[in-house]
């Protein structure tokens, strides 16, 4: 094979691996969400209902997830290149600013209203929950509204 051909072959192999990992991670993430029952908004609302009938299951989900991801991050920090040989892209902002706090506050309110956040919402779409479609459409509108109307005003 020519040098150019070899290069193209390597890139397409890497892309195939990248895309496969993306797909499998998504599948695994979704399975985890279902198994943990976080796709059931009642479980989330129950966890946030600290002053009522308090369902602590979500704490176990976060705890379990962190147990594994802390190990993952540790390995990543000691291996700057990932499986496909590319550098690891981590968020580099460190400043705690108003958008972070205000955004998180708003997100928390929305989360507390329906008990749904982005990942479970998308899994619920796959389950065929029509309410999830309403939520996701609204969420997408919210994302676009932020990108088009709010973000330009912040920079």
């Amino acid at each position, binding site marked *: 094979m020519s040098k150019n051909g070899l290069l193209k072959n390597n890139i397409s192999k890497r892309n195939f691996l990248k895309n496969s990992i993306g797909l499998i*991670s998504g599948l695994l993430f979704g399975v985890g969400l279902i198994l943990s029952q976080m796709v059931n908004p009642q479980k989330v609302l129950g966890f946030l209902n600290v002053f009522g009938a308090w369902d602590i299951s979500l704490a176990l989900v976060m705890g*379990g997830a962190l147990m*594994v991801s802390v190990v993952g991050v540790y390995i990543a920090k000691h291996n700057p290149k990932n499986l496909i040989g590319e550098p690891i892209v981590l968020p580099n902002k460190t400043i705690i600013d108003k958008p972070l706090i205000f955004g*998180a506050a708003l997100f928390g309110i929305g989360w507390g209203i329906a008990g*749904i*956040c982005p990942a479970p919402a*998308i899994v619920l779409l796959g*389950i065929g929950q029509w309410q999830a479609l309403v939520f996701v459409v609204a969420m997408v509108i919210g*994302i676009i509204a*932020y990108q088009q109307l709010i973000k330009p005003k912040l920079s």
Partner: protein
Amino acid sequence: MVDWQSFTPISLIGGLVIGAAASMLLLGIGRIAGVSGITASVVRIKNVEAWQVLFLLGLIVSPLIYQLIAPLPTIEVTSSVPLLIIAGLLVGIGTQLGSGCTSGHGICGLARFSKRSLVAVLTFMATGIITVTLFQQVFGLI
């Protein structure tokens, strides 16, 4: 009061699987499994990468895979349409403004010991708890 009747210890296993999925993405392709960010990239289309679309596809198809092994757990969505819309809008705007959600900040950010993520998680937990307390305890809604 802790509601032991509703407590599901298996949630821990689900959590481990979620952590494994996030680690797979990080170690495999070096990216954060922040679903609000990935969704935003797909929505914006401009610089979207194929793996992001496939990740979301994986989330959508995961119930089918799950059901090969076990039946789906009970799922109760009780919110009315207007509340679903308001909730969705707030989540859409809030996650963008705050640069993340429960997966991005909660699972990936905390695992990196990010101070930003810690502040974000404490903040959204606080407003989430206040919201549910107001709705359920005070207004008797939801």
